[in-house]
């Protein structure tokens, strides 16, 4: 569902930087002078390697979050000086606004549907595409193509296809399903699911490519051994492929959830969160209140709430799901 990378997951991971300064093996046996020099060299190395990244991270990630949190405590129209301190008033308004509460609900629905529907489909197609059959490369290309399209193109294209009397309606009528035709984007009860279908169309390829990469990493010997032992295809998939695919699936879940919590572009361009907020996500609500209504501090408060959602999920997921996958890579000193 998103273009963020697995590296994002690592940055906030617990213990990411804690143990790094532990001296490497061998240092203990050498003389004190050598140890100091070695320590100095290590410090210089770390500064050169981590410094620039850390400065960027502090300046462009942590500082804006801190400043945003500060601005969200004021009533500010974006132009005048920051004088009207209102405390947590913006947050109170947000959680008392039915429009924002339903935007949260929509976001959670989209997240849940993404996991429940995109996951199994992506896994099924990835397993299929991992077998050898004629035209496999072409098939992979076709399935991955939507992910490469810019979301803006996807949104414009699908809003044309889904307009009343558009191609989708015509195809359904031609197939004898005319009775099922709906106002896909104008019906308050359907629009969210129409948007979800488009999001699935766009981002399914990402899940497939990720899982395919995971499948490639499973040693063929294991499957051969299973075959020799007389395992059926289903048993091989169930007992060997899926467990070994676990780390990939867990990363996919992480990326999908974080992406779903922030989904904006496709929804905004297709519906602007409408009609009447029926397809609002937290991000479209934030954009409308912040930029269109020019209630900048209120919009910032919404952004902070979104951040807390993502942050809380990232922490919990790191702790309970990703920890075993990243053990050694992120939680221990390397070298």
């Amino acid at each position: 569902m998103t273009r963020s990378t697995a590296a994002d997951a690592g940055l906030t991971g617990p213990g990411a930087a804690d143990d790094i300064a532990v001296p490497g093996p061998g240092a203990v046996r050498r003389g004190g002078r050598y140890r100091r020099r070695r320590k100095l060299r290590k410090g210089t190395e770390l500064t050169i390697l981590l410094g620039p990244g850390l400065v960027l991270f502090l300046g462009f990630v942590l500082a804006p979050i801190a400043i945003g949190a500060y601005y969200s405590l004021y009533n500010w129209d974006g132009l005048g000086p920051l004088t009207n301190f209102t405390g947590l008033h913006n947050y109170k308004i947000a959680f008392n606004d039915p429009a924002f509460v339903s935007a949260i609900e929509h976001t959670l629905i989209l997240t849940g549907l993404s996991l429940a529907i995109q996951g199994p489909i992506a896994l099924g197609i990835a397993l299929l595409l991992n077998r050898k059959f004629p035209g496999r490369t072409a098939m992979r290309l076709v399935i991955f193509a939507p992910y490469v399209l810019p979301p803006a193109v996807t949104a414009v294209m699908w809003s044309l296809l889904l307009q009343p009397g558009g191609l989708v309606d015509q195809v359904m009528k031609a197939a004898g399903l005319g009775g099922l035709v709906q106002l896909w984007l104008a019906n308050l009860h359907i629009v969210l699911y129409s948007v979800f279908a488009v999001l699935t169309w766009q981002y399914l390829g990402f899940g497939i490519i990720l899982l395919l990469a995971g499948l490639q990493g499973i040693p063929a010997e294991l499957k051969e051994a299973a075959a020799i032992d007389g395992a059926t295809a289903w048993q091989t998939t169930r007992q060997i492929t899926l467990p070994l695919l676990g780390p990939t699936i867990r990363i996919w879940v992480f990326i999908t959830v974080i992406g779903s919590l922030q989904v904006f572009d496709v929804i905004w361009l297709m519906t602007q969160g409408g009609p009447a907020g029926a397809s609002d996500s937290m991000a479209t609500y934030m954009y409308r209140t912040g930029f269109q209504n020019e209630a900048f501090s209120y919009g910032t408060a919404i952004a902070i709430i979104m951040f807390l959602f993502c942050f809380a999920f990232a922490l919990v997921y790191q702790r309970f799901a990703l920890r075993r996958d990243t053990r050694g890579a992120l939680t221990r000193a390397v070298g």
Partner: protein
Amino acid sequence: MHRKRVVLGVAVAAAAATVLAACSSSGGSSSTSTNSSTAKVTLSWWNNANTQPLLGVFQNVIKQFEAAHPNVTIQNVPMQNELFKTKITPALRGNAPPDIYQQWGSGQQATQVQSGKVADISSEVSSWISSLGTPATEWQTNGKWYGVPYDLHVVGFWYRKDLFQQAGITAAPTTIPQLESDDAKLRAHGIQPIGLGSKDGWPDAFWWEYFAIRECSQSTITSAMSSVNLSAACFTKASADLDAFVKTNPFQTGFLATPAQSVPNSSVGMLANGKVAMELQGDWEPAAGSGLTSDKNFDDQLGWFPFPAVPGGAGDPKAVLGGGDGYSCTTAAAEPACAQFLQFLTTPAVEKQIIGAGAGLPANPAANGDLSVPAEKDAAAANSAAPYIAEYFDTALPTTPGQNLDNAVAKWFASPDASGSGITSSVTTP
């Protein structure tokens, strides 16, 4: 060590910002302090004329101005309208605002003036601004001039003569009941009567605002805008009228998801392609529509009539809803070059080119005779004969209540109710 780096980084960034700010303002201050006719000056110009024909007209206007003022270079920065609106506030907040930017006067201008970045050009324009007449006073805030209009707008019904003829409608409706019966005739001929671009919100607001203008007296409207309060009974009546009208099913299928303009499946595009018979829209309809259809006769097929009278309403049936487009100079801009450019845009020769592109009605009444699309002349005549012009409510109000009103009306259209309490309370909610 990390802290040191951060401090260094901040220092570098601050220095860079100072240098940049110095660059952008040096063009401005140097020219006023030195000889204004010789110092080189560059003015960046943010506008929403990103499509032809207005885009080309503005490029020509720049050439003409630069030829007359060899020391001035105008840098044209056209943007799509909806994008433009979201970029202005951050730009005025930042250190490098554009020199000239488009705005719509009235309450929104008053909000922007708070930034301290909008230039008071009263002394530059005082000698000639009166020639533009009273509509230009929307660009005054606290008695000072912060902008100059280059065109004026009026909202009314644009209709297709061919589709009206098909349905056997011989005269434009003058009352709401007549409009409703015309809708029924059009439906009977398989024609969708009225196009509405609800996705963008503001076209919805035109409907509610016009019912309010017909139900409320001029003084009620004026005081409601200045006090940011829609509690007068006539506003509730406007909602009830609109509710009754919407119940007659006058709009195209799926209007809630239809965009307003810019794309062929927008409400403007639908009128241009004959998929709806009429639309309540501003006078930019011919210009916006001509780019969305291959029909060369589109301009001649168009007719115009004012918003029909509401029987029993306290408002004047000849009052119109409208506004205009103008430009402001920011404090970064070089004077008098910037004010000279704004004046240049209102000269009859330039106004002729602007209205020739169908951008709107001329801000300078001296150019009224140059309108080319026949229906535009009807719109201009109604505008000049109007007893008063009600500024679009979302610009007449300060920005946040104005946008809240647009959003509330858009929301109302998704689930209409006769009380309209969500609309009338929207401007007073935080």
